[in-house]
């Protein structure tokens, strides 16, 4: 009785199992069965009165599946160069031309100066497609103070010296919602030998703050705000702090880029923040900073 039932019953599935095991666990999905690639325009513009020029970049989204890093076709390149990009405020309007050398749409602020506290609207038109976005340039804040804590005298033999704490503080402007990017850097130099063998020094900015600099005055309206980072640098030099007053779009966009969790399989899907409406995506945002009020600090006598 048992044999009658079991033998054919066991042999058949085991045969199927062995025959199919290799291909069973992984199967490529045909690209045609996936949601179609949405090729849409992407606008990127970070405008500020303190810039020499206004620059707007126009790109296309890229395919997710299949061949991904193909150079843009001539047709696409032409399409990205031939859009009509217009910037306007309540009184004025300007068409921003495409500048081949920079690969962006750009215009000097001598021709179209931007002003703090003014709202600007960007329009991008290409054939039947139209994108719009707007932003208001925040007023700069000149209350930034930066300070560096004293270094501990005794250094840990195993882990090297303890870090110092670099603190950026400023007074929030009361009764309005404000967003900031508190930024600090140190000018450093590296030495290289040019083609003739001459020793040459090249300056570069050693960045000291990253995403922790993005802050808002949520629940702290009108108070002194603070960003503190560890400072591991040494040697003489000058640390500079810059307080960017940024608009909400700037803040939300950078937060979403830096907090992007796309590589975490357990995280919810997340679109990068956009304030662009119409046939595309991207960011058009504004900032200002007070260039005359950059505090500096001397770091002296640090022993390694």
């Amino acid at each position, binding site marked *: *009785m*048992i044999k009658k*039932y079991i033998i054919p*019953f066991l042999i058949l*599935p*085991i045969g*199927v*199992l062995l025959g199919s095991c290799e291909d*069973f*666990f*992984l*199967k*490529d*999905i045909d690209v045609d069965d*996936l*949601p179609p*690639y949405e*090729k849409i325009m*992407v606008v*990127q513009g*970070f405008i*500020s009165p*303190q*810039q*020499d020029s206004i*620059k707007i*970049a126009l790109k296309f*989204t*890229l395919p*997710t*599946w*299949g*061949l*991904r*890093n193909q150079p843009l076709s001539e047709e696409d390149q032409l399409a990205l160069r031939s859009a009509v990009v217009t910037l306007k405020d309540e009184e004025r309007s300007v068409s921003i031309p495409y500048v081949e*050398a*920079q*690969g962006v749409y750009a215009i000097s602020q001598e021709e179209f100066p931007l002003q703090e506290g003014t709202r600007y609207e960007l329009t991008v038109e290409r054939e039947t497609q139209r994108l719009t976005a707007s932003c208001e340039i925040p007023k700069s804040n000149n209350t930034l103070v930066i300070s560096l804590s004293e270094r501990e005298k005794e250094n840990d033999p195993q882990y090297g010296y303890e870090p110092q704490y670099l603190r950026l503080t400023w007074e929030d402007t009361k009764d309005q919602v404000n967003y900031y990017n508190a930024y600090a*850097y140190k000018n450093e130099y590296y030495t290289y030998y040019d083609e003739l063998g001459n020793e040459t020094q090249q300056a570069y*900015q050693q960045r000291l703050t990253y995403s922790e600099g993005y802050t808002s005055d949520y629940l702290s309206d009108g108070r002194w705000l603070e960003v503190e980072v560890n400072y591991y640098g040494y040697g003489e030099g000058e640390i500079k702090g*810059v307080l*960017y007053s940024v608009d909400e779009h700037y803040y939300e966009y*950078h937060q*979403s*880029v*830096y*907090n992007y*969790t*796309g590589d*975490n*399989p*357990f*995280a*919810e*899907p*997340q*679109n*990068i923040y956009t304030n662009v409406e119409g046939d595309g995506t991207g960011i058009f945002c504004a*900032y200002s900073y007070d*260039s005359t009020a950059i505090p500096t600090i001397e770091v002296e006598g640090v022993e390694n």
Partner: protein
Amino acid sequence: MMKQLQVCLTFFLLLVGTQSYAQNNYTISGYVKEKGSGELLPGVTIYDANLQLGTTTNTYGFYSLTLPAGSRQLVYTFVGYERVVKTIDLKDNITLDLDFLPSTVELETVEVNATAQERVSESVEMSKMILPVSQIQDLPAFLGEKDVIKTLQLMPGVQSGREGSSDLHVRGGGGDQNLLILDDAVVYNANHLFGFFSVFNGEALKSVEVYKGGFPARYGGRLSSVIDMNMKEGNKEEFHGSASVGLISSSATVEGPLKKGKSSFLVSGRRTYVDILTRPFMDDDFNAGYYFYDLNTKVNYDFGPKNKVYVSGYFGRDRFYSSEDYRDDEFKAGLEWGNATGTVRWNHLFNQKLFANATLIASNYKFGLFQDERYQEYHPDGREEVHLKMRYNSNITDYSFKYDLDYMPTAKHQLKMGVILTNHRFSPSAFVFKGPETDIDERQLISTLEGGVYIEDIYKPTARLTLNPGFRLSTFYHEGRTYVQPEPRFNVSYVVSKDLAIKASYAMMNQYVHRLSNTGIGLPTDLWVSSTKNVLPQTSQQVAAGLAKDIDKYGLTLTVEGYYKRSINAISYKEGASFLFLENLFEGENNEVDWENNITRGNDTSYGVEVMLQRKVGRLSGWVGYTLSWSERQFDELNLGKSFYAPWDQRHDLSIAGSYKISDRVSVGATWVYGSGTPLTMAVAKTPSDVHSPELDAHAPKDPLGQTYYSYQPTRDYYGTLSNFRRPAYHRMDIAFRFHKQKKYFQRTWEVGAYNVYNRQNMFFYTTDYEYDYRNDQEYAYLQQVSLFPVIPYVSYKVTF
């Protein structure tokens, strides 16, 4: 609020007041037990066919029926048991306890004793399913592990079609919206091994009732379903037991009298043994493994007709571990999780019409992670032993008191009323890290109170019409904020003809505790959190209507139901939210996620039609269930505020489950499930996501080179709209043959079966693969489907004595 309460109470008083107080009414009451074991039987129908009045036994097998004096013919029926007819000359109140004999299936004929079939047309309740516990044993199961939750997923209205998941989605509800109660204790995590098995051991269960809608007022606290499980009490007459050996686990159950006829016990345990089998193959210095176990215990004592006491408990654990010894160094790490519940119940019979039950309940779910390390640190002046210890725990503990009354004043009214108070103690994160220079001990404890008062009545104004109005007032207190929510409930049933009834129901439900998880695969790290002043309770309203027909000739029941459910303040996760709480943990940081800011509120709408054709008796038994449903969500902060399909939206769900008794010694069981694809959000493009770069800004050296002042970042996924893709349909067939033989002292059963008989490649998850063509500088990205289980045969051996 008070006004609503007053209206409801007045309504009840009016209802009860309308009863006719005939002078010569007498009460018949008693307990119905299984003959031979003394196991009390809930759900037995007692019916006076002439008067067309009846009742059913409650959870503790008690019934009370008040009828006019005279000669009364009472019919006792219960599915799977012989029908009993008692003729009584009713001239006084009487106590009538009954012993019920399990029916045997007639093999010569496929005709069934129609009266042994549960009659759906006679019950006022709708959207309710009674899971036939004995049938679970006859159906095939993954690796032979019989599973209540997996069997539930074969029922209409309960979504099936996900590989290896014990998460339940009932009528478009979320996985945390199910009230799973085992002997009145809430079980928070029903998963073993990330959802491949559930914690409920079919051997220890007496009954499993599932409500998908039309919720009686005695239940509250979750929006979408109630799964009420009761453990067996244990045989009061003689010792019995069973033991089985399967591919991954063994289980044993023993039950018997402690004092014959008065007291009995039941102990049922199960443990996996992959770790024991693999240990000999491990290196001496290294050991790693996994196991889970369950232990169900129950004892009861019958103090006489007035008082009975039951004490029951469940304890289960999953544990992954590894340990390594190298010279003088030692390293141990692992994770474990599990539920523990304990219930003490005291039944008291005040009089023939008033039955009371007082319950004390404790329930705990705990997840823990541990790491211990000992090593030698060498210094110029000697060596020193360093001990590092890390513990991370997350748990929820409930203490509840519950008092329920069953009051049966006349044959036309059956009132149930009661009160429950629960103290939830959430400890979402307790972290201990101890080392030579570190001593961190951080604990969070949140204590909340949840309460409920309810009253409901089954009122039969005419022989054809049955009403079941109910009202529950639920409350929740958290840090100075109190929520008080009225929850009206209503069921109505009208018997159109002898075997056909039409039914309708309305229920409002509230949910105050929420589960945070976006893995969707039953990781034990899922965290239960409480409603707060910012996170409002979830509230749902559901209406359902349908018909129930008994097809007596073939022993079939047919139910067709349509439902519409709307939930407000439903919880979802914000874009990009992640609740994997363990990131950075081993770096010594207590990575508390600000969960309140990671969730968002919105509305859920689900609607559909369910059809079920079931046969519980006879040689061929089983069911066919089909669901056509839609489940949509609308959240202001998701998908630009536009509505989108819920991740568990499934248009078609078809399940066929059946067992056929070929002979006394051989039976075959088979299931086939089909679920159309569920939605998924898939990237449709990569979007450039450059950022403003202060280094290139004008406060630095000017930008003479014409640099753009933003810096390049990798492209990010662009999803367009949510739920923009559907997984392929899921379907699978399982089959099992069972061979029984009566030996001298026991019956043995060989079971041989197979999971996924025709080797369907069902999707478990998707992964991305890349290929790089260096010659042409081309990168290709592929989406790959990962499937988990091909056809898997299994065998198990069981003895029952």
